[in-house]
């Protein structure tokens, strides 16, 4: 059988990062190809290349053996490639039919939108995937599963030949997932070539005919699903990371600092308990949505848990606000630096001192000299590259912004620092600096929690690793058990190899 769509030697880089290096991918009509890889393996980038959002620097894209270039998302859509994203991109205020036809609505003789054709077309498309939604319903009134159906109907309305499903089951219930599987079967029967991106091994084995594995932006292997085992796939995914070197750690573990017991949240997590020691780096690993960030947000007062006790140095502390968390000595460096960390319009020094203003002011007045001193002390320790501390934060690179955000929290002199995906989206050089700095912090006696989805980072930096899945702690890994296979298996819910 010949592939519908075939990628060869695709490379794409961003400042400081090679996101894809000469990767290949083939998609066949009527078959599901699973794209497998860790976070950061380049899966999202290849989807953006396929849908015309990114233009690769090298490599060729062929459809039915004819070379083609996607200069824009419209080009890709015209060529019959369509993606259904993790968060479906639809419009709540429009009707089901309008959502399906937006941008390519059928026209009447006079060039106006043909509403009747739109409605009948929507009904036909929905029926072809076994759905009986009223096309006049407002999309916002539908559940997430129905929205998926609309998104898929929309994909079909463009006569798509290649359908990309990017983590489609991440937000679905058990029942809805099974409906999605049926839908994928329908699409297969219609001869669509399907690219299926998922972290979940059980569903990959259930619905995919073929697999392709990426690791660190490189192609690792491909083949038929029937000729591979879970263990082999895990092996391909994690492989050997050669180019990342982690700083030496002192492993000088002191007495417990933070003890969490019976920690529960009405919807996000349940029965979380762990102990964090002085001088320790405790890794939290899990798939996206496993509830790691939610636990951390509760610990730092952003959300309120329903049950459970937090002790610092053996003393029970009640944390209901970020203010109380900072007072208790717990600080949280959020994952989404742009949204939750950096204030781009403010100068660097003001970003650093924001949570410490009580210390740098006297009689209710700020002392700028004092602020500069504090900011200089902490940004220097992080090796910040900036022309002046008066510079607007938004003018710095991502890595340097991250350093400022970390400096901000260190300046509050915490007991416990929680770093959520501390190196996500920053270049290799800044990554190494952040790692080195974490090791230093631990050596100085700070207790560090690192939430990370990058296995090499988790294994390279942590003394112990807690693995979470579906809001619960599944495993605690230390010593010889700290291997990529153990983490991937625990996080994905696969039984340990015999």
């Amino acid at each position, binding site marked *: 059988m010949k592939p519908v769509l075939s990628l060869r030697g695709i490379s794409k880089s*961003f400042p400081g990062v090679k996101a894809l290096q000469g990767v290949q991918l083939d998609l066949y009509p009527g078959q599901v190809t699973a794209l497998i890889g860790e976070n*950061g393996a380049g899966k999202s980038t290849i989807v953006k290349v396929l849908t015309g959002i990114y233009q690769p620097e090298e490599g060729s894209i062929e459809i039915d053996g004819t070379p083609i270039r996607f200069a824009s998302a419209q080009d890709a859509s015209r060529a019959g490639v369509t993606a259904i994203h993790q968060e479906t991109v639809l419009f709540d205020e429009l009707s089901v039919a309008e959502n399906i036809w937006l941008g390519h609505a059928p026209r009447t003789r006079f060039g106006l939108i043909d509403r009747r054709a739109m409605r009948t077309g929507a009904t036909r498309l929905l029926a072809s995937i076994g759905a009986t939604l009223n096309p006049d319903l407002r999309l916002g009134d539908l559940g997430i599963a129905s929205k998926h159906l609309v998104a898929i109907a929309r994909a079909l309305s463009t006569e798509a030949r290649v359908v990309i499903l990017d983590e489609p089951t991440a937000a679905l219930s058990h029942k809805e997932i099974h409906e999605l599987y049926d839908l994928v079967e329908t699409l297969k029967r219609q001869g669509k070539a399907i690219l299926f991106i998922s972290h979940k091994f059980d569903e990959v084995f259930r619905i995919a005919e073929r697999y392709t594995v990426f690791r660190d932006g490189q192609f690792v292997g491909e083949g038929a699903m029937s000729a591979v085992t879970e263990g082999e796939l895990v092996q391909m995914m994690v492989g050997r990371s050669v180019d990342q070197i982690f700083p030496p750690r002192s492993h000088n573990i002191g007495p417990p600092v933070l003890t969490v017991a019976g920690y529960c949240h009405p919807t996000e997590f349940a029965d979380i308990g762990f102990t964090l020691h002085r001088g320790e780096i405790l890794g939290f690993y899990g798939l996206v949505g496993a509830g790691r960030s939610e636990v951390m947000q509760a610990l730092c007062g952003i959300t309120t848990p329903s049950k459970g006790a937090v002790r610092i140095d053996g003393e029970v502390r009640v944390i209901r*606000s970020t203010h109380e968390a900072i007072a208790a000595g717990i600080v949280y460096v959020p994952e989404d630096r*742009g*949204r939750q960390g950096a204030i781009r319009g*403010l100068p660097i020094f003001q970003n650093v001192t*924001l949570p410490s203003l009580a210390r740098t002011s006297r009689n209710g*007045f700020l002392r700028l000299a004092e602020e500069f001193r504090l900011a200089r002390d902490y940004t220097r320790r992080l090796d910040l590259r900036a022309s002046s501390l008066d510079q607007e934060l938004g003018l710095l*690179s991502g890595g340097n*912004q991250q350093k400022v955000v970390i400096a901000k929290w260190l300046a509050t002199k915490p007991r416990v620092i929680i770093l959520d995906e501390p190196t996500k989206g920053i270049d290799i050089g800044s990554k190494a600096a952040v790692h080195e700095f974490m090791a230093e912090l631990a050596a100085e006696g700070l207790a560090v929690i690192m939430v990370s989805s990058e296995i090499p980072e988790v294994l390279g930096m942590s003394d112990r690793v807690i693995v979470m899945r579906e809001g619960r702690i599944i495993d605690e890994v230390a010593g010889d058990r700290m291997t990529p296979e153990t983490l991937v298996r625990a996080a994905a819910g696969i039984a340990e190899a015999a």
Partner: protein
Amino acid sequence: MSILKHREALLALAILLLVGVVAARFPAFVRPGNLANVFNDTSPLILLAIGQMIVILTKCIDLSMAATLALCGMVAALLNGAGVPLPLILVLVVVLGGLLGAVNGLLVWKLGIPSIVVTLGTMTIYRGTIFLITDGAWVNAHQMTDDFKALPRAVIAGLPVMSWVALAAIALFTVLLTRTPLGRSFYAVGGNPHAAVYTGISVGRTQFLAFVIAGALAGLTGYLWVARYAVAYVDIASGFELSVVAACVIGGVAIAGGAGSVIGTVMGALFLGVINNALPVVGISPFWQLAISGSAIVLAVAFNSAQNRPAGRIILKSVEPR
């Protein structure tokens, strides 16, 4: 920071240029006495624009400022008629203005209603309240005591009290915004509300305080306005809220919040003040006055977005590597 200084210098240049053009045809305009008059005339706009600027810094907007001014001005005139001593009236109008601002602030903070909707509503309510307490009657000059009318015009060290109030507000709020934790939190809340929450700043409370400050300033200005023009009625300062927003925008206050300075806002107000005072003098028709202030607003916004664009692009690149 440097961009801000840069844009303030440009604005100062624009004002000088405008004054220069007028002076070329009408030299008397640049006599110190006349310039002081222009400043005095612009003082109410400056006072309100400072309040509005703080509200805009926190990603909100206060459309009810002129109505607050009018209601407080009317209450001041009525209290004067009832024989309340002037110092007490001053305190009461500031408190009343602060309370009216607090109503706006609470609706935004506790109910999470967008500020533009809240203040559009209270704008009408506050104006309506004037009608309710007066039945639409005017309070005229002969119904006001002499000391009530005299205060804004009283000259101290060569400048009327009205100008001194504006200068004091400029100094006070420059210090508040650049030298106090509260001032810093206005910028933080507008610059990135999510990040502000993580650092322990309450976004709603900060916005509430901004509305209280804006209301108090409008209340004080209400007295000054009514006393200076020696008349109070339902429609005083009608439409003035838009001039106030215009002064902020011309002065480089980012309408999306988080950026702006007192000095820039003051210059934005002065720019409008010079246009209003100078153009009639040189015989330019009112249409051109409107067109010039309108163009100034569009230019200021275009200038703002042109300055912001390159930075935005760099950020996108660095945040989206994979």
